[in-house]
């Protein structure tokens, strides 16, 4: 570690761009895939093609290594993007080389085709799963959690009585809860909203209480010497020091919300939602649609997470 830190600046001035290697590798893999798509049957000597793919990947890895040097914006973003693109291309080429039936492992291009073909169904599923279940449940759970945390900090008895339960209940697996709630509330989307709200509630309560109590003794004493009212103390000291904790909880729960909405749908729906789609298509071996649904869910999940992270940066600059 320590030696690395010393040698890096010495190696940095070398102006070596990874672009030629990356382009070569990417175009080569793309060319292989196209060539394989032209063939009527999978090639008879797959070892040769495998060697080609591996060589091109090796070139790509060197390209990634070279483009990861330095501290520029490109050096931070290009390696990750190149990794994803090369990985997808290599998977495509390999699946075609060995003629893996698309019913078993669909090629990335097939997944993209299915995604486009089924876009209206998947968008409607995403509307149910994300807007009605995950987002609504997230908002309800976070609001309730904040309220509960405020009460718990205001009344110490409540904190000591409720928080241990909250910590205990947060290690309850969501899948055990889902069937009971769905049986009680019904198959429609509200049951999933409730499940999401419950799972968001606990991290928010625990982290908010921890945050509200993280105010420094010195700051509180200072406010006391200013003769500040409890409301002022709360607004000026306690709440600002709690915000980072609240945002940590919100970020963690943003991913939990979508995941749990999908899992909850495995236990019964009225025929909408990404979880329902995944389950039903796995049963029918429509794995291309399953992957397409996962791609949609991933894009939504990552965007939701980035949105909350951006809100945190906006509201809490310098953290």
């Amino acid at each position, binding site marked *: 570690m320590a030696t690395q830190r010393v040698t890096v600046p010495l190696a940095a001035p070398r102006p070596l761009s990874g672009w030629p290697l990356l382009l070569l590798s990417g175009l080569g893999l793309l060319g292989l895939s196209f060539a394989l798509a032209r063939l009527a049957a999978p090639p008879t000597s797959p070892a040769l093609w495998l060697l080609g793919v591996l060589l091109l990947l090796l070139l790509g890895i060197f390209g990634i290594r070279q483009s990861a040097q330095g501290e520029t914006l490109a050096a931070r973003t290009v390696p990750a993007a190149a990794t994803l693109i090369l990985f997808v291309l290599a998977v495509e080429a390999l699946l075609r080389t060995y003629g893996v039936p698309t019913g078993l492992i669909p090629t990335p291009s097939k997944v993209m085709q299915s995604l486009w073909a089924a876009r209206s169904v998947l968008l409607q599923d995403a509307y149910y799963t994300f807007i009605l279940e995950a987002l609504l449940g997230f908002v309800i759970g976070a609001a309730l959690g904040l309220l509960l945390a405020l009460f718990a900090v205001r009344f110490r008895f409540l904190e000591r009585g409720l928080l241990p339960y909250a910590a205990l209940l947060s290690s309850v697996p969501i*899948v*055990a809860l889902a069937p009971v709630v769905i049986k009680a509330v019904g198959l429609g989307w509200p049951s999933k909203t409730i499940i999401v709200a419950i799972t968001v509630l606990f991290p928010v309560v625990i982290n908010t209480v921890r945050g509200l109590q993280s105010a420094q003794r010195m700051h509180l004493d200072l406010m006391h010497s200013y003769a500040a009212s409890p409301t002022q103390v709360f607004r000026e000291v306690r709440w600002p020091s709690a915000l980072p904790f609240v945002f940590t909880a919100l970020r963690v729960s943003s991913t939990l919300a979508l995941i749990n909405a999908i899992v909850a749908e495995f236990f019964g729906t009225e025929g909408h939602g990404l979880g329902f789609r995944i389950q039903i298509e796995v049963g029918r071996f429509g794995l291309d649609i399953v992957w397409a649904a996962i791609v949609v869910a991933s894009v939504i999940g990552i965007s939701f997470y980035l949105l909350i992270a951006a809100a945190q940066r906006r509201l809490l600059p310098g953290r």
Partner: protein
Amino acid sequence: MTTAPTPRPARRASNVLPMLAVALVAVLIYWPLMLWANAGQAARSLASGADLGCGTALQCATQLRNPVIPAPGQFASGFQSLSVPPLAATSAPYNALVTGGETLLGLALASLLGLILATLLVRSRSFERATLPWLVASQTVPIVALAPMLAVLLGQFGVQGFFPKAVIAAYIAFFPVAIGMVQGLRSPDPLQLDLMRTYRASPAQTFGLLQIPASLPYLFTSLKVAATAALVGSIVAEISTISFSGLGKMLAENSRASDTVALWVIMIYGAALGIVLVALIGLLERLVTRWRPSA
């Protein structure tokens, strides 16, 4: 998720009394809530002319066949029927053990994978730049959604039974473990690294004698976070594959059979299993990291 393990603040006063009070309130709320939740269904059954053997909707509320919230008596009989021969194939304790075993094996696999990944991430900056964004993104991807498909895939290649569930549990748990290990491997301060240098320790020795032990508390903190997720993973895997034991299989069966009392009982077993797993990891942590002052 990625916070450093902090020592627990000292308990000022005992929590027993407030916790008991809250539990008492919960029990007091439970009875009217149960009556209210079941009365509607009971009234509908009575109105449709079913003979439930009881007069009014309120009286029937405690003896519905499929209550929304079971009455105490139903809970008791449900518990008895699901757990009396504790190791029978259809009893909840046995199935909870199976699921717990899968989850623990998964967590062990996740620790191994996490250690390898964390070592690579700490050693090579280009590896970190190329893969870390995707490791982070994989955390926001509904990985559980992959579980049914992974199960199908592994089944195609002849991997069946206990192992695929553990693989899925590991797949879900490895990310928090890897991130925790990265933090842990980087946690020794320069003073400690300098000391190792004055001893003329080889990089491997520094790694094995300083960085690995320093990362253990971080490993256990992230394992506790990962344990619940891994448990969810193995239950979902049991639901979506052909399985003959495990809580997930019981959930799927009783969900199809609409046996609500059994679902409640299994939920309580699942909750207990989650709590026990986290406690087990805490116990292991205390055994392994003896040198740390107990938190």
